[in-house]
C-alpha cells in the first residue's frame, strides 16, 4: 500500500519536473544569452553557460529601450486606470442601478469580450485616423480602454452582485445618491475587485504587441515593439534583445510575485459565504 503511494508520488513529481524544465527553457536561454559576450553567441554553443559574465548587456539594452519603457508605463498605467475605473462604474450600474434594457446592453458588452482584437485592427486604425489620434500614445490608450471595458465591466458586475441590495437601499434611505453610494460604499468595498481587474489589464496591455506596432509611430512605440526592433535587422547582437526581454518581463513578474495572492483572493472573493 505504502509503496504504491510512493510510486504514484514519484511519477507525479517526475512529470511535473519535466514540465517545469520545458517551461523554464526559454527563460534559461534568455538569461544565459543575455550574460554572454556578443562574440560568444553561436548556435552550437547556445545552451552553454557564459564563459564570462557580461552585465553590460543590461545597461546597453536599457539605454536603447528606455524611451520604449517610458512609453509602455504611460500607456499601461493610463489605460489600466481608465478601463478599471470605467469598468467599475459600469459594473455598479449593471448590478445595482438596473434600468430598462440594461441586461441587453450588458449582453452586448459581453460580445465585445469575444471579438479577437486582430479582427478589428483595420477599422480601429481607420477610426483613430479619422479622430486624428493615429500614431500617438493617446490613441492607443483610448483603444485599450474601450477594448478592456467588457472584461472589466463583467468582473466588477459580478463582484458587486455580492454586495447585498439592502446595503445600497439602506444608503439611499440615509440620503445617499448615485455617486455618494458609489464613492462611500461601493468603492471602498471593492478594493479587491480593483486589484484583480487592474492586474489583469496591466498584464494584457503591457504585453500587447500588434496594436502597438500598428497604431503608434516610432517615437511612441511601447516596449514590445522596441524589443522587436532590437531583434530585427541583419547582424543582431542577441545578448541585447535577451536582456531587454528580461527587463520587459520584470514589471509584470514583480506584480504577480507581490500581488499574486490578492489576485487569487480577488478571483475567489464571495465564492464562499462568510
Amino acid at each position: 500500500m505504502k509503496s504504491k503511494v510512493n510510486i504514484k508520488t514519484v511519477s507525479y513529481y517526475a512529470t511535473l519536473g519535466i514540465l517545469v524544465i520545458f517551461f523554464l527553457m526559454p527563460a534559461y536561454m534568455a538569461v544565459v544569452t543575455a550574460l554572454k559576450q556578443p562574440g560568444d553567441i553561436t548556435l552550437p554553443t547556445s545552451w552553454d553557460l557564459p564563459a564570462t559574465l557580461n552585465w553590460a548587456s543590461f545597461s546597453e539594452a536599457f539605454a536603447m529601450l528606455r524611451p520604449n519603457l517610458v512609453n509602455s508605463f504611460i500607456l499601461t498605467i493610463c489605460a489600466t486606470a481608465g478601463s478599471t475605473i470605467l469598468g467599475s462604474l459600469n459594473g455598479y450600474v449593471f448590478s445595482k442601478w438596473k434600468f430598462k434594457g440594461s441586461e441587453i446592453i450588458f449582453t452586448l458588452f459581453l460580445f465585445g469580450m469575444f471579438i479577437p482584437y486582430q479582427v478589428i485592427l483595420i477599422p480601429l486604425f481607420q477610426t483613430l485616423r479619422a479622430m486624428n489620434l493615429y500614431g500617438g500614445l493617446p490613441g492607443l490608450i483610448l483603444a485599450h480602454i474601450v477594448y478592456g471595458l467588457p472584461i472589466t465591466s463583467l468582473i466588477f458586475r459580478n463582484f458587486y452582485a455580492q454586495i447585498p441590495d439592502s446595503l445600497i437601499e439602506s444608503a439611499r434611505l440615509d440620503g445617499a445618491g448615485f455617486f455618494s453610494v458609489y464613492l462611500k460604499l461601493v468603492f471602498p468595498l471593492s478594493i479587491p475587485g480593483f486589484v484583480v481587474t487592474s492586474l489583469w489589464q496591466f498584464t494584457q496591455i503591457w504585453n500587447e504587441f500588434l496594436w502597438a506596432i500598428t497604431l503608434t509611430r516610432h517615437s511612441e512605440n511601447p516596449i514590445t515593439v522596441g524589443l522587436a526592433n532590437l531583434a530585427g535587422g541583419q547582424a543582431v547582437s542577441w545578448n541585447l534583445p535577451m536582456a531587454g526581454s528580461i527587463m520587459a518581463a520584470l514589471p509584470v513578474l514583480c506584480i504577480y510575485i507581490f500581488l499574486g495572492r490578492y489576485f487569487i483572493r480577488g478571483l475567489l472573493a464571495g465564492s464562499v459565504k462568510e
Partner: protein
Amino acid sequence: MAEVILENITKSFGKTEVVHNVSAHFHDGEFIVIVGPSGCGKSTVLRMIAGLEEVSGGNIKIGDKLVNNLEPKDRRIAMVFQNYALYPHMNVYNNMAYGLRLQKHSKVEIERRVQEAAQLLQLGEYLQRRPRQLSGGQRQRVAMGRALVRKPEVFLFDEPLSNLDAKLRHQMRVELKKMHKNLGTTMIYVTHDQVEAMTLADKIVVVNKGRIEQIGSPDEIYNAPASMFVAGFIGCPPMNFLPAQHSNGGLSLENGFIIPAKDLLIPSDTRQLIVGIRPEKIEFSHLQRESGWLEVDIDFIEKLGSGKLLYTTIGPQQLILSMANGDDRHITRGWIRFPAEALYFFSHQDGSLLKVKSS
C-alpha cells in the same frame, strides 16, 4: 410622528400583479404588524411605503403628504432590514452617523444623537467596532440605532428579528415594544411570524396573496377571524378545520359524528361548510361520556412544558387539542366535545366566515 394612509395601492412586476388594491389607514403612534406567509406581498407593501419600490397604482400618504413620487430619503422614514444592511467598512459610530452627515447636521448634533441612541441600545462600548466584530444581537441594535438617530416620523421594519436565535428574538421583541412605548412613533413591522404579530401589534394586517384578508387588533384577529386563512394563520397550534354537512339539528362530520347545534342559526341553504375550533377550546375527558361526546384515539402527545398537545384524527382530518398539564397518565384514548360557543363556521366555497347568530 405621522399617520400612514394606503389608498388602493397595487404593484405589478412586468405583467404579474403581486399587490392588489391594498387600502389601510394606520393612525399616528400605532404599532402596525403586517403578517402573512412568505411571498404574500407584505414586504413589497413595506418597500413601497419606504419608496424603494414604485407603486403601480394608488396613493401612499405619510402625514398629510402624498409621497408617491418622493425619494426614500425625503419621506421622513427609517427602515431596519432583515440582514441589518450595516456598512461593513464603517465602525458602529459611523454607521449611525452616516445618514446624519448626509443630512448636513452639525457635528455636535450628530455626536449627541449617536450617543443618545448608543445609550438607549447599550452600544456605548462598541462604537469603535466594525459590524463584523459584533454578535447578531448587537448588529441588530446597530441597525435599530441607525434608524433611531434619524428621528423619523415612521419606522419601518422588514422581518428584523428573523436572523436571531429564539431567545434573542424574544428579548429584542420586548425591547422593541418598550422602544415603541417610549417613542410613541408610528411603526410598521413586517413578519411571517404570527407570535411577533400577536405580541407586538396594536393593529394586525393579515395579508394573503397580495390582498388584505383582515385588519384588526390582535384580539379581534384571534377571536373573530374573517376567514379560514386568518383563523389558520394566527394562533399556534393553528385552528382545527373539519368539513361538515349541515342538517337539521346538527353538523355531521365525515366520520358520522354529529355535533349538536340546534340553537345555531346557520343559513338553511348552507349544506356543506367547514367547522373551525381552536385547539384549546376542545373539551377532553378520560372518562366515558354520553351523547355529544366523541370517542377518539390519541395518536401521540407533544409536551411543551407549560402544557401539552394531543394529536388525533377524525376521518382523514387531523385534530389537535391543547391541554394544561396535570394529568400525566399515558393517554391513548378519550372523549372530546366541541362546545357550540367555540365553533366557527366557514364557507365551503371561499373560506369566508359565515355569519351565525345564536338564538
